């Protein structure tokens, strides 16, 4: 099962279990979404539970706020993370703050799913990684899966969570894992252990990272598409690295991070998003605050560049094997 199918399956599991779940967004109804994550939902659950929305991300999020206030549980799609900005005020000022400002009288249990990231020649409006804009906002939970198994389990957890969850889907790996070598064919998910997705209901807990590769020499902190790129890079460079897939950025699994860095003494942070004020800055700060006396070398970051996403220069922009190799060598040098 690929990640799209796993996410689709998660929708079917939660919608069958809870009649209050309503799915809507641009093209999600009859057609099933431009990436087909919501395919078949309208047929199975009817037009009023899975339907198309006007091209109005502000309206989509606001309608979800109203529905959540009514007592429904909206599970909405923003077609690309790059389109989320017209809905940003509703997310930041309303969704995130409603429980707090009403002292729990009104809560906003909703999931905002959105495909993020580059590597598909999507240009600057179909490639961004805006997760740090949301990790900075109190009241939101931010989740990024990296495998079909996690995608289904985390989405079910997100739907069942009492708090609003922004669910970033790494669209570069919707169809298969990606090792950063864009000139080589992508391996299908069927060759990856996490493509075995159980039927029915199961969850992957929010707030719990996964150690996807154990190692002694270095800790790599990463999430989403970059989990696969990082795994490939440490193998290619022959480094006994521990690779941690954060899976949830807020709330962060600090214990796993701290335990690993204290063990290895070295740390590399990898994400697709631009460097300045990216989530990596938060990770580096936490490691510095908590693990400073265990560190053998400065913590390094591998990130996208601080430019808008350039279409023709995509592979010069995207953090890939060369950038990782250079950073790995630097962290391991001392």
């Amino acid at each position, binding site marked *: 099962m690929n990640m799209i199918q796993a996410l689709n399956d998660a929708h079917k599991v939660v919608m069958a279990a809870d009649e209050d779940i309503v799915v809507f967004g641009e093209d999600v109804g009859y057609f099933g979404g431009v990436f087909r994550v919501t395919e078949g939902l309208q047929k199975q659950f009817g037009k009023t539970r899975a339907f198309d929305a*006007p091209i109005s991300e502000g309206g989509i999020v606001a*309608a979800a*706020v*109203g529905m959540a*206030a009514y007592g429904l549980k909206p599970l909405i799609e923003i077609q690309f993370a790059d389109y989320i900005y017209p809905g940003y005020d509703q997310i930041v000022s309303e969704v995130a703050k*409603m429980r707090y*400002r009403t002292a729990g009288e009104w809560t906003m249990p909703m999931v905002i799913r959105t495909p993020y990231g580059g590597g598909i020649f999507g240009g600057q409006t179909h490639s961004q990684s805006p997760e740090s804009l949301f990790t900075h906002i109190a009241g939101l939970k931010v989740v990024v899966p990296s495998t079909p198994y996690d995608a289904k389990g985390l989405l079910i957890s997100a739907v069942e969570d009492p708090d609003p969850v922004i669910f970033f889907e790494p669209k570069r790996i919707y169809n298969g894992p990606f090792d950063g070598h864009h000139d080589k064919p992508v391996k299908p998910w069927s060759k990856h252990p996490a493509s075995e997705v159980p039927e029915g209901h199961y969850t992957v807990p929010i707030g719990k990272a996964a150690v996807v590769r154990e190692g002694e020499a270095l800790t790599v902190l990463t999430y989403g598409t970059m989990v696969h790129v990082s795994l490939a890079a440490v193998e290619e460079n022959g480094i006994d690295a521990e690779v941690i897939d954060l899976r949830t950025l807020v709330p962060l699994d600090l214990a796993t991070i701290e335990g690993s860095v204290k063990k290895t003494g070295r740390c590399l942070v990898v994400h697709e998003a631009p460097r300045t004020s990216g989530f990596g800055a938060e990770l580096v700060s936490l490691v510095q605050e908590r693990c400073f006396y265990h560190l053998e070398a400065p913590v390094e970051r591998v990130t996208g560049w601080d430019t808008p996403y350039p279409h023709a220069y995509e592979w010069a922009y995207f953090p890939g094997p060369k950038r990782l190799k250079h950073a790995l060598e630097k962290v391991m040098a001392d």
Partner: protein
Amino acid sequence: MSDRDPDLRRNAPKLQLHVPEPPFRPGDTPDFSSIQVPAAGEAPRPDSTAAAAETHSLATSLVRVLDDDAKAVGPWDPKLDADTLRKMLRDMVTVRVFDDRMYRAQRQGKTSFYMKCTGEEAIAVAAATAMDRDDMHFPTYRQQGLLISRGYPLVEMMNQIYSNRGDKLRGRQLPIMYSDKAHGFFSISGNLGTQFPQAVGWAMGAAIKGDSRIAMGWIGDGATAEGDFHSAMTFAAVYNVPVILATVNNQWAISSFSGIAGGERATFAQRGVGYGVASLRVDGNDALAVYAAVQWAAERARSNSGPTLIEFFTYRAEGHSTSDDPSGYRPTNEAKAWPLGDPIERLKSHLIALGEWDEQRQEALVAECDAAVRAAQKESERRGILPQQGNENIESMFEDVYAEVPWHIAEQRDASLREARD
């Protein structure tokens, strides 16, 4: 040679930017004679299930019921009984007295901020009266009359204004940004316009679940320029949502007049026409007209005939808030020149014309409301005023961010408690 060469364009006229200006500035004598005020009773009343297009002529006229002799006339007369009229009058007087007391409390330093709705009391009170008790409101900040009409305890409102120990919102919201689920009053946001499409979403939820309750969203004339206004209208029209969308055009958004929001060339009600939404423009200082319009729109929503946009045409008689000095941007006596009169005076005169009221009873009513507000204020102030707050129970500041307190917020809570002890 390019056609962008300035030499080739030397005979073209210079382009000009139009920046709207209100007709009067401080020092001018206000004269509202240019405002078209149709006679009461003139506007036709289509059936509430009529096609939206049948209402579109009402987007430029003005639905009015009370005439110059304070008599109810025309097809929009809701023919309310005297008890209902007296209840509305009492609620409107309570709002005005409450506003005056709380304004004064702010000036005395008991709270940080207050916003009066002087001159607009009929709008929220009559709308609340026309809606069912279990319908839902998504208000903006000048609809305190919704709560008062629904019998919300004045003490609770004041507790929220003082952010005191009795404040159910635990001191987290700006005064006047009330919230009360049980009274069908959604949490007010300082980011203007957000509540308008939320009302649509709530009503979509009601329609999805086959409920019979409807929602009403509220926005000011200034905030109609926000994208949220247009999202709300689009969603309301697309899904034929059982919602009433109200724009309170009180002519002023802090210091910017309604022309800056786009009200110079078309009425705000006319915006409904382009969306295919039923649209009414209503005399907001006429409690009977407000009641009739909301009742009509509610019937329309309940019968699945679609949403309604209502523009309540009124005037903000006071400053925007306690932080505003309107003498800096408009004539001081402008409110008195407003051609639609004072809503409380008009309803009172109507009841007197019906033989159901008199000046002595009005005086007694004002005194009674004043006593009730003073008593509530005394009781609320026993629970504290704003300057006394913020030192006890600091850990509560870290609750309700999430359902459970995550580790990073727990760490910060502990740090804040240490800081408070130092």
